[in-house]
């Protein structure tokens, strides 16, 4: 479904992503792992058009989407959440998700219908499925970090994506929030049949929910494979346990 081929991007001489390869098949949950600064978030930014790659290709459903602006990537069926919380601070939880749906339906050019009445059912449906319904009218600047991270996912769902990219979905969450979030991700894959690509530092979560894992070190891919393959790989052990590439 998603095919990333030797993608590269450097910032002032520092190669943040350097020849990264990644394949995601339909219906899979794929994790990207790697030490801090390995280029995981940059990779996601390159796939979703936040940054433009210097070399390499990104194919989605066979179509070349390399270097397209974010809104075009989103319209082709890729939604994402951000590692650093990225929501609309002055709007309510409800409005945050609603805009996402209205945008997908291309209704943001409607200048004269009150938006309060539009896409209400679908917004409520998403809020119920992620468990934010009780707080829907709160301004997002005033809700907890955990709730904001969940809202991130809810907004991504508003785009009704085929591929959902989650950048450290549980970072900074309290333990009970984390387990709730993992259940949510499993549900999205199991019930909605979403294809999910995510990165995460917590290895328990990664090995618990991923079908396949891609390991990044210094901007490049060292291995892509099943959990067992990754666990027993020599290069991965060096990267994580203090070989030449120690973080």
């Amino acid at each position: 479904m998603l095919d990333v081929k030797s993608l590269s991007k450097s910032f002032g001489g520092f190669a943040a992503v350097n020849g990264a390869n990644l394949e995601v098949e339909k219906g899979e949950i794929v994790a990207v792992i790697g030490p801090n600064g390995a280029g995981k978030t940059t990779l996601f930014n390159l796939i979703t058009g936040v940054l433009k790659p210097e070399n390499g290709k990104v194919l989605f459903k066979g179509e070349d989407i390399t270097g397209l602006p974010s809104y075009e990537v989103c319209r082709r069926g890729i939604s994402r959440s951000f590692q650093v919380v990225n929501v609309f601070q002055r709007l309510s939880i409800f409005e945050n998700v609603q805009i996402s749906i209205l945008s997908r339906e291309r209704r943001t050019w409607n200048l004269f219908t009150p938006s309060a009445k539009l896409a209400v059912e679908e917004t409520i449906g998403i809020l119920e499925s992620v468990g934010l319904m009780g707080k829907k009218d709160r301004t997002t600047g005033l809700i907890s970090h955990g709730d904001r991270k969940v809202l991130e996912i809810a907004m991504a769902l508003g785009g009704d994506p085929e591929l959902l990219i989650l950048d450290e979905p549980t970072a900074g969450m309290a333990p009970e929030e984390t387990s709730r979030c993992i259940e949510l991700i499993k549900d999205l894959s199991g019930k909605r049949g979403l294809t999910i690509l995510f990165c995460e530092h917590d290895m328990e979560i990664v090995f618990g929910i991923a079908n396949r894992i891609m390991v990044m070190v210094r901007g490049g891919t060292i291995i892509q494979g099943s959990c067992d393959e990754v666990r027993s790989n020599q290069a991965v052990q060096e990267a994580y346990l203090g070989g030449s590439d120690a973080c």
Partner: protein
Amino acid sequence: MTKNTLGGKGRIVGGALLILLFLSPLFLPRFYIYLVSIILLTGLLATSLNLPLGYGGIFQFHHAVFYGVGAYGAALMITKSGLSPWFGFVVGPLTAAFLSLIMGLICIRLSKLYFGMLQISLGSLVWIIAYRWYSFTGGDNGLHGIPVPNAISSPNGAYYFTLLVTLLSLWTLHKIIDSPFGSALQGIRDNPVRSAMIGINVKLHQLVVLVIAGFFAGVAGSLFIVVDTAVFPDMLFWTLSLEVLIMCLLGGWFTFLGPMLGAAIIISMRTFVSGFTDYWTLPLGILMMLVIFFLPNGILGYIEEKLHRNLIEQTIKES
């Protein structure tokens, strides 16, 4: 937070204010009718600025240029074309919207402060044309004695025309803010990267909002001709842009009616305080400092916040 949180009480106050505005020619002397007309049209100018500024998060630093060009467009159409003056009132706002499109296309590639700085530069170019092209724009004298249709040439006629057009424009602007387009706009203000990631074409939305704002600034400029029958280059000088910006901040730039309130305060101060001293900007400066320190969301922003908080406390108590 942009919704009207004033509820029932707000509606009563608003209704009373409207009735007062419609009846005021019956009891207010002529000078005050003129003053209220100027407040209304300047308030419309400030509200049109607040669409990109407060709701869109765009640093629209030189908004007066669209006000001035709207006024000049209408005035030149009326004095030079020989067509019906009503036609001029349509051409004025359209000229402003067109200029806004052209300047927007050039400036939109930059963001934040850089957008504002480039806009000031381009706007100053437009100002110098109005200021120096004597044969066409009347140069620094401007154009005076512009003929206005009979129906609206009396002071009361001009007042009612200004009031009706302002109300209609405010209603339209409010509609736009409440629409999906308005929601997308506020999303872009809060977070452009995220907006793009949910499928919104950020630059295109910003360009459209600039054109809409330019159009309504042009409407305000055309109204000025009705009230004053004159245009002059000061109308597109950058100091007026600054003054309108202050109106938005003073009244509350995250509220819909804040800019109108700001316009009322600043124009009243300029009119009445300058009767006592030439340094009327001194009390304005002090007021501005107090607002920045104690009411960072502006006067109306503070009131709305307070009412909203009371409402929440009440709901908590009841439950």
